[in-house]
């Protein structure tokens, strides 16, 4: 019997395990299916990690390395090359390992930290043939940065999320010609800094409101057809551009990897594609927590760390207190302009001093106010100069304000009228 089993050894799992250790748990197991800890960070060799948490700019492997070192100072047990196959509601974890075979372990608490995977071409259905040379951007990143081989020489990238932008620069540096980055939305899904330092720096054109409408080639990609789209994202005939290329990289979004979560019977949120969580990252099953990209897709690993530390600390508290009686619950609702919030539920009695709330907006906004209301009462207001769907926002609500709320709170955006 373990006090805590953490599923996934990426930054989320590492931070949760360390925090639970600090919180006093002494029998903790991390199960990781890969041959090493660190998760997706091992292939993110660019810098831009840790500005919030370490106050310096680190590369992915450096950021992961620091947490792996912290973990090695604890007595947390790690099982690598071991895949979790099933988690049950009574907290049994079924796993199969390369050397250990099939095992079932019982846990007093569980942290789900499985991260996310990339949407593939099938999921968005591009017409055309099915030649070699179509990769997800993350798979290409792994080939180039870890395995050491180049997926192709003339590249078109579909999707302008951060992974696509980072790979545009990476392929260029390694000698490939990146012909275009194509984005179906009228704005990029990536951070502005990545548009500047990955596309502008290398004169790579970004086509907004465009998409790939055909892939041509017999054995290998030979051409990709790109068309402009209308407001409903339908291709406009007559706007086709043909690119001669041998590679198409897809950066069309990430999906939290929640098969285990669903199977366990955890209540899910359609909007985040992750579990519905309370203020301490606990799911609808007591003692089962979720954090990091498995809960909602993050752009910044620093926030993954912060959220996962909360989950780990909460798991430690849960085990120490053996669970306790249900309390007053506030539902967090998405008001105008808000796509989702995490957490989706808050138990004010469990909030110590303040509660962090993450959310995404559904459009680009200039000068705006973030309003938090309960019924007809406004309980908090925050100002922002700029909001974008590609950038996760967060606000901090003090406990005293939450105590004023009744049954639900609503988060909404109001753009300030320009005079």
């Amino acid at each position, binding site marked *: 019997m373990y006090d805590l089993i953490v599923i996934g050894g990426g930054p989320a799992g590492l931070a949760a395990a360390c925090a639970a250790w600090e919180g006093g748990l002494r029998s903790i197991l991390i199960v990781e299916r890969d041959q090493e800890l660190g998760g997706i960070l091992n292939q993110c060799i660019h810098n831009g990690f840790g500005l919030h948490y370490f106050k310096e700019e680190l590369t992915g492997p450096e950021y992961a390395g620091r947490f792996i070192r912290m973990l090695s100072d604890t007595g947390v047990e790690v099982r690598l090359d071991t895949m979790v196959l099933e988690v049950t509601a009574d907290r049994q974890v079924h796993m199969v390992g390369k050397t250990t075979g099939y095992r079932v372990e019982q846990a007093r608490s569980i942290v789900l930290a499985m991260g996310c995977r990339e949407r593939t071409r099938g999921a968005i259905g591009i017409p055309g043939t099915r030649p070699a040379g179509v990769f997800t951007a993350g798979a290409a990143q792994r080939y180039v940065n870890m395995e050491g081989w180049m997926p192709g020489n003339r590249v078109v990238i579909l999707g302008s999320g951060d992974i696509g932008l980072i790979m545009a620069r990476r392929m260029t540096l390694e000698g490939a010609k990146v012909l275009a980055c194509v984005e179906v939305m009228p704005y990029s899904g990536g951070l*502005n*800094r990545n548009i500047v330092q990955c596309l502008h720096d290398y004169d790579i054109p970004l086509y907004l409101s465009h998409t790939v409408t055909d892939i041509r080639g017999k054995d290998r990609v030979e051409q990709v057809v790109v068309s402009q789209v209308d407001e409903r994202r339908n291709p406009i005939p007559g706007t086709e551009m043909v690119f001669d290329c041998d590679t198409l990289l897809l950066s069309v979004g990430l999906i939290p990897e929640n098969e285990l979560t669903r199977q366990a019977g955890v209540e899910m949120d359609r909007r985040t594609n992750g579990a519905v969580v309370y203020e301490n990252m606990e799911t609808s099953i007591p003692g089962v927590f979720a954090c990091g990209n498995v809960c909602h897709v993050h752009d910044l690993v620093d926030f993954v760390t912060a959220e996962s530390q909360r989950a780990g600390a909460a798991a430690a508290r849960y085990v120490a207190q053996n669970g306790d009686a249900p309390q007053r619950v506030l539902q967090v609702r998405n008001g105008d302009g808000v796509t989702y919030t995490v957490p989706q539920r808050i138990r004010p009695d469990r909030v110590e001093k303040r509660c962090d709330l993450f959310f995404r907006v559904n459009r680009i906004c200039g000068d705006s106010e973030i309003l938090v209301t309960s019924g007809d009462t406004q309980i908090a207001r925050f100002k922002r100069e700029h909001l974008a769907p590609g950038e996760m926002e967060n606000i901090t609500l003090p406990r005293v304000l939450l105590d004023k709320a009744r049954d639900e709170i609503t988060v909404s955006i109001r753009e300030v009228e320009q005079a």
Partner: protein
Amino acid sequence: MKELICIVCPKGCHLHVDEANDYKVTGNGCPRGAEYGRIELTHPTRVVTSTVRCAGGRYPRCPVKTDQPVPKEQIFEVMRALDQMELTAPVQVGQVVLSDVCRTGANVVATRSI
């Protein structure tokens, strides 16, 4: 007056740099943005991150970075220098694998232990 997006941190502040007025920067959320704005318009620099060949490890590449930003126009020269190299495990994170790369004054350091 030039408009720039600061790339120093993920906030991405919209900077206004006044070239006529000693590169005075406005719109920056913090002092690092002022420095970035001035440097970007006078002699732009970037940190280069890449990988080099590495024998004896689990994977055939070792990730590296320049420990300081290098002039933007020398990025491809730095990449060519990295392409000439081959490391042998063990490598320690932070270890200098190439000093004063292309006379930029920057060292290339390993970003993970192998």
